[in-house]
């Protein structure tokens, strides 16, 4: 199997506390993967490392066919390479309309001059409406993102991710604060996205992970505890002890 992202031997410590400890992880080009683990296991920090927000103390992060290292790149460069990220708490631009949020995320040249002279053409508008339909927000396009409900903001953020057309999607706790039916819709969106690209979903909720129906990586104290199907990992003694047995 070819590899899209390979993280090997990565460690990070904050003031002496090892948040990530010799972590290794790899994912293929069109794969859906769930990462579970108790609070403080280092799931968000893992995403911070991949997206360039946190620099690891040691280890390698290798990306794509050309096997380039992500460690020297800025956050914006990494995003342009094709890694999109959804944050744990929904972060959309509340002061701007749903339409503008999506348009900003749309895969287009990102330089200041290109953006200054950019005027949306009909294919772009059509793409925005298509995305809005996919995340169930077509009626909310002119509304300010700040007016949306919590679940809708989560979707808008997922929509912005899809608009970026990334090769790898990192999604941090997408179902937090969603109703049951909203969760189902979210699973649909994520599974559909994973047909054409790699998707990594961090989630607490076991039911949600079960519905994703994919390979699971269990993180604990900054390193991988177990990996495999959900049934496989939930039978792992250590996993039961540290996570499920709580």
């Amino acid at each position, binding site marked *: 199997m070819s590899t899209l992202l390979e993280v090997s031997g990565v460690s990070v410590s904050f003031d002496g506390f090892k948040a990530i400890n010799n972590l290794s992880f790899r994912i293929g080009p069109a794969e859906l993967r769930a990462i579970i683990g108790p609070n403080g296991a280092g799931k968000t920090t893992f995403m911070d490392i991949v997206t360039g*927000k946190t620099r690891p103390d040691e280890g390698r992060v290798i990306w794509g066919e050309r096997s380039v290292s992500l460690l020297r790149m800025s956050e914006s460069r990494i995003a342009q390479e094709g890694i999109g990220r959804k944050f744990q708490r929904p972060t959309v*631009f509340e002061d701007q309309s749903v339409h*503008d949020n999506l348009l900003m995320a749309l895969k287009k040249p990102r330089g200041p001059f290109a953006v200054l002279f950019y005027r949306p053409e*009909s294919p772009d508008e059509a793409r925005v*409406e298509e995305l809005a339909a996919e995340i169930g927000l077509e009626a909310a396009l002119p509304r300010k993102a*700040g007016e949306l409900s919590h679940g809708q903001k989560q979707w808008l953020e997922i929509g912005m991710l899809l608009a970026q057309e990334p090769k790898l999607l990192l999604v941090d706790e997408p179902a937090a*604060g969603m109703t049951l039916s909203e969760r189902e819709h979210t699973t649909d969106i994520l599974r559909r996205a994973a047909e054409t690209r790699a998707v990594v979903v961090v989630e607490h909720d076991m039911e949600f992970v079960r519905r994703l129906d994919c390979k699971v990586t269990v993180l604990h104290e900054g390193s991988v505890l177990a990996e495999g199907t959900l049934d496989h990992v939930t039978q792992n003694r250590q996993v039961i002890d540290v996570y499920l047995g709580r």
Partner: protein
Amino acid sequence: MSVSDPQAGFAQAITRPRHRPFILRNPSVGVFLICLALFTLGVTVLSEDYGLGLISTSFVKTLGKTLCLCLVAIAMDLVWGYCGILSLGHFAFFGLGGYMIGMWLMYARTELIVAASMAEAPIPPTPAEITDAIGSQIFGVVGASDFPVVWMFADSFVLQMLLILAVPGLLALIFGWLAFRSRVTGVYLSILTQAMTLALSLYLFQNDSGLRGNNGLSGLQNLPGVQAPQSLVSIWFLWGSALALALGYLLVAWVVSGKFGSVIRGIRDDEARVRFLGYSVEGYKLFVFTLTAVIAGIAGALYYPQAGIINPAEIAPIASIYLAVWVAIGGRGRIYGAVIGAAFVSLVSTWFTGGQAPSVDLGFYRIDWVDWWLVVLGLAFVLVTLFAPKGIGGLVDLLTWRRHPDRHGADLGPDQGSLREEEAET
């Protein structure tokens, strides 16, 4: 949460009307331009030489200068109100623009005077003699007579005019590149810009800075080779300032109206998020910082010929702080807010500090506005920041009944099952 047919969405987009013209999407731009045109026309009609003579030449100059202050306030609004960079150094760029035009004005006028006086000499003077004479005329006050390097383009109108754009632009580019690249933000950036302003003004205070130390450049109101009286020149400068303000307003409105505006407002509200969308935040900040510095330079170049004199005190750090106060009081994040703030506060300020405001006698204490105006201004700033963050411009929202839903931190919506922001953070 219906997942509708993408094809339907596409059809919708096709039938949707094409983008309306810029001016229709931004009605405030049209309103502003009309107001500005009427204002300029009104002042012209009431002026001494072109009209009824109801407005004195010095007041015409005050109004013309105010237009320049509005222009630099617009620049401040773009960099602070829209992009979130609280620069406390934009008056340095304003002052540099003034110095650049001042050098040409002084040189060209002195050249005429020197040439006229030497023409009577029996032997025609050589070019070197003329240059020497100009030098000792200009730099006599600081005990020098040689032209410093910084004056090398002063004899060329075109080059010196280009310096009005280039000098503030380059300084902003270098400063911004250093500051943004190391991700200096917030208060630290503000302090750094203050330090830049202070350093520049202290440097200019020195006699060997080449710009006549604390004497500054003077006599700038006299245009070389122009015999017209000040009553005419003042009106020309009013027109020029109004034109520059109109163009500046259009430019800034255009910059913030499209996707670029979206991105810089995104940077203001959540810089990290913009980065993860793939935009290089530093590049955008640098662009906005430099562009606004150039606008500030142009504003200064129009202001100081109307003021007649520029000296290093004009670049004092406090001037840039006033600029931020004007924009805050007028309402940041809306261009007309900056104009209202700059015009209102600077005119009121002129009135109070000019000694025209009647003192208030409390019996036990006499309030002299010359001394107390700053206290009032400071208080107004604090009150506006606390109780009316939208500033005077916020009144426009009330007038037009436009609702600006701003629900940061409020309930997230009536939808069933939606959580409060706090709950969502865990």
